[in-house]
């Protein structure tokens, strides 16, 4: 007994669920269910009816918000206003009286001359009620609508144009992607070139200690071959900006605080309190005009790439594509200068 009971109840539950599901389906798809609740409703269990009634009572009991009420009143009004009485109320005694006077459905007023045109008359409607709330001036609404319409039209036009030029668009996107890719390759090649140059430098000055200490400082920009001068310049500029920003922030912070001049203060303290402005010395050639570099930068990415790759080959027997530094200028085994050659 104690064993069976759970199973039974389980079965019952299963059946109930099944039943509910079935009803749920019928309720959703049965047209009668959406009719008035006064009417007969098939397949409604007492539980469901109870739930529905409770739901409805709750809906009725809940005080509606002002906005809801207004919306409801407006909906009712609009519904009533948009329905012609001639259609809504065909049994009206008023209409019957008018029919007796010869009303056949056209406009009122003097009988028009020939009967032929009478049938085509449009029935004049009562004047529309338009409620203006707020103090918007005349034309504002339509101006707004016009702007919206114009915006929509413009968007539509753009879309149309875009559709028409879809081919061109794809082509442009492809070209842009390709250019971005090439720019990356240029940078990569420039880095290689720089590294190569550094390695050369290191090799040359392996024993010269004095010179090595200064190797932290880069040489003057103009002495760097143009093919990677841009890379160095950009890096230096980024660094300078970062430092300047840092100084600015520190300085601002310091200046906001009241300062105390202490003659006893050590230089270190001063530095710590950022009373001494750390000035970073840069080669001031960063801002100098560099027509050579500008000319190089103005080149198309594939040309820039070609030049860097060529530079690497010529100076270091390095093929950017083979990623290999050949021992001699012959560069035997390398298929050629261009990327395509390596495919």
């Amino acid at each position, binding site marked *: 007994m104690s064993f069976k009971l759970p199973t039974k109840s389980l079965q019952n539950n299963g059946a109930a669920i099944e039943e509910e599901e079935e009803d749920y389906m019928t309720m959703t798809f049965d047209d009668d269910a959406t009719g008035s609740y006064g009417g007969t409703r098939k397949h409604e269990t007492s539980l469901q009816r109870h739930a529905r009634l409770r739901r409805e009572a709750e809906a009725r009991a809940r005080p509606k918000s002002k906005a809801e009420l207004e919306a409801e009143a407006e909906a009712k009004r609009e519904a009533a206003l948009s329905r012609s009485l001639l259609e809504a109320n065909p049994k009206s005694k008023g209409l019957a009286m008018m029919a007796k006077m010869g009303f056949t459905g056209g406009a009122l007023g003097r009988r028009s001359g020939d009967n032929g045109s009478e049938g085509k008359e449009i029935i004049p409607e009562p004047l529309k009620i338009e409620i203006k709330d707020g103090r918007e001036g*005349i034309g504002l609404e339509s101006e707004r609508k016009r702007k919206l319409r114009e915006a929509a039209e413009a968007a539509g036009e753009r879309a149309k144009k875009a559709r028409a030029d879809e081919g061109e668009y794809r082509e442009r996107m492809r070209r842009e992607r390709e250019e971005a890719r090439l720019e990356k390759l240029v940078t990569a090649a420039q880095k290689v070139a720089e590294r190569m140059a550094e390695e050369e430098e290191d090799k040359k000055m392996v024993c010269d200690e004095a010179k090595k200490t200064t190797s932290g400082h880069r040489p003057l920009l103009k002495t760097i071959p143009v093919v990677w001068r841009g890379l160095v310049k950009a890096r230096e500029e980024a660094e300078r900006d970062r430092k300047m920003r840092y100084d600015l922030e520190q300085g601002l912070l310091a200046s906001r605080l009241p300062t105390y001049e202490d003659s006893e203060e050590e230089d270190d303290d001063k530095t710590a309190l950022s009373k001494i402005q750390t000035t970073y010395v840069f080669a001031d050639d960063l801002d100098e005009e560099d027509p050579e570099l500008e000319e190089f930068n103005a080149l198309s990415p594939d040309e820039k790439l070609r030049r860097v790759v060529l530079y690497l080959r010529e100076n270091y027997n390095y093929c950017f594509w083979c990623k290999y530094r050949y021992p001699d200028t012959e560069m035997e085994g390398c298929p050629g200068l261009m990327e395509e050659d390596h495919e």
Partner: protein
Amino acid sequence: MADITKGTKRLSGEAEGSQDSKRVKTNGDKMDAKNPYLAHLEEKPEADFESLLDKLERRNTTAKQAEAVEDSDINPWTGQRHSERYFKILKARRKLPVNKQRQEFLDLYHNNQILVFVGETGSGKTTQIPQYVLYDELPHQTGKLIACTQPRRVAAMSVAQRVADELDVKLGEEVGYSIRFENKTSSKTLLKYMTDGQLLREAMHDRDMSRYSCIILDEAHERTLATDILMALLKQLSERRKDLKIIVMSATLDAQKFQSYFFNAPLLAVPGRTHPVEIFYTPEAERDYVEAAIRTVLQIHACEPEGDILLFLTGEEEIEDACRRISLEVDEMIRESDAGPMSVYPLYGTLPPHQQQRIFEKAPQPFRPGGRPGRKCIVATNIAETSLTIDGIVYVVDPGFSKQKIYNPRTRVESLLVSPISKASAQQRAGRAGRTRPGKCFRLYTEEAFKKELIEQTYPEILRSNLSNTVLELKKLGVEDLVHFDLMDPPAPETMMRALEELNYLACLDDDGELTPLGNLASEFPLDPALAVMLISSPEFYCSNEILSITSLLSVPQIWVRPANARKRADEMKAQFAHPDGDHLTLLNAYHAYKGAEARGEDMKKWCHEHFLSYRHLSSADNVRAQLKKIMETHGIELVSTPFHDKNYYTNIRRALLAGFFMQVAMRESSNSKVYKTVKDEQLVLIHPSTTVTTPYEWVVYNEFVLTTKQYVRTVTNIRPEWLLEIAPVYYDLSTFQKGEIKNALTRVAEKIRRQQAMKASKA
């Protein structure tokens, strides 16, 4: 012959000097004549005064002849000597633009039955044309009068007064006026100014308008309901009465519509005395037209040369608010930037007359000679558009809105809504700036909006009104076929249908559309059919005295005064009169208190002021009551009351209200809601906040259903649903109701009544 040469001289202006000296002499005589001891001297000229007019041949006079009569020392209509004032006015009259075309007018008048006359404001048409007709029709010979209709009561009264002065006669004698609830005419009356509605009422008893030989419809461009009906009636009548002359006068130049409507009647146009007006538009639409209007006024004050400002706004509250803000801003301008002084005056219909008069005060003088100009600024509703003329206006600010009445038969809502004006209205407003000298009009909208957004003409009132009263009047006027009644702008069929239906429910029309005896009686009252039916049925409820008072109070503007600066006190005072069962009863309480105070001999103006009641409207209600009482007595409607201490005193009144207003009932939506649903139309409404009713009753009868930004029912009284089924069983035939709460509730009530009756029957 002598007359003619005299006339010629005068026309050429050579005789000015001699005329003046002669007048001085005349005036001397006149002064003597005032002495009662010398009264016998007056008798002398009377012997031949009639001969002045006898020389004229009716409907065949010339301008010269008429002017000669006008110029004579003796008043041809009274036989008295003309006063000094008369000649002073006459001199001014001769300078009016319309005077130049007097002969042209007479020629057209003689040769046509119907004439369309267009004269812009300031042409003098309203005062002069009827007088030109007077000197041509010679009504004293035929005994037939000249009527000139005006859309507004105030205009009818003031123009009649003016014309009486011009003719040097006493108002109410040769020249009189007739408006609803007031008739100032006598057996001597030859020229009668009247409201268009009044002429319509007269026509109900005199379908051929046989008392008149000429009817002038003035301000026809305003297209009031009554003017439109009159035009249709006169058009019909012109075929029956070939001797009747009709003049349609309009102030706007769209006269073609009138011409083609009246069988291609000829047109006479007289230019107004106007100056050019420069029109400015805003480059962009305004976000807030009131704000923009105030800004514009201040800018004019700061930058423009001397000249007064007229600003058009829509309603009392908006106008009072704008006046306050402009005054404050101007004070600041005076302090900070040496601006000139400015007086700001509001102007709207419900403003008491003495305050309306203030707009004619002179503009303030600059603070010092040669200083920045002082000016006045009038902030007005569209009454300043046509009906009131204010000289000195040079700048007009026009935001392009006015409050307009609109009625929709689909929900039976009647409302005053702020709506864009028409192009014609905008032109009329601009024209106001050019009365004294070239002016400027600032339109607070773009030129494109003017062209595209504004309709050409304001819709005639007939398209914006509930027609139940009109239909009843037309029936009474003998118009059988309402469907093909030849109106200039026929209304929508639905509006007609609704009106017929309502009259049928009120039992004023039978199912065939024929006037019932009740309908016939109702049409005798210058009231809406619902009010008339309520009044006629009231003896059945033993409270016709009280219903008569309530009807009168509902026929005048609000008697409650609620000034912006004393709202709370006004509401407290109103609460003293409050009756818990409804606003109709509160009105009655206030009226009874008013009459009580009057009987005690109190200073009524003071009493009203203290109690925040409008003395003007209460006394006007009193007058209306007297007029309606007379009509009731004429038709043998008993005046009865339930004793005040009877417990049914107020119940009877509440029931009697339903006899007329059973179609204006609303039921509360649910037990915890403030929302009511109107019967049959099922519109959701709130009770207007002006109510004194504090209990949320289940059922109320209401006087008006209005739409502002929300839908309100105004002036409500608690009723019992049983009464509905009992008093208006036809309307409350439950089979005609659509499913819903109202039908359910009424069905329950009907069952309850049946049960009670069954119980009674079984007991018996």
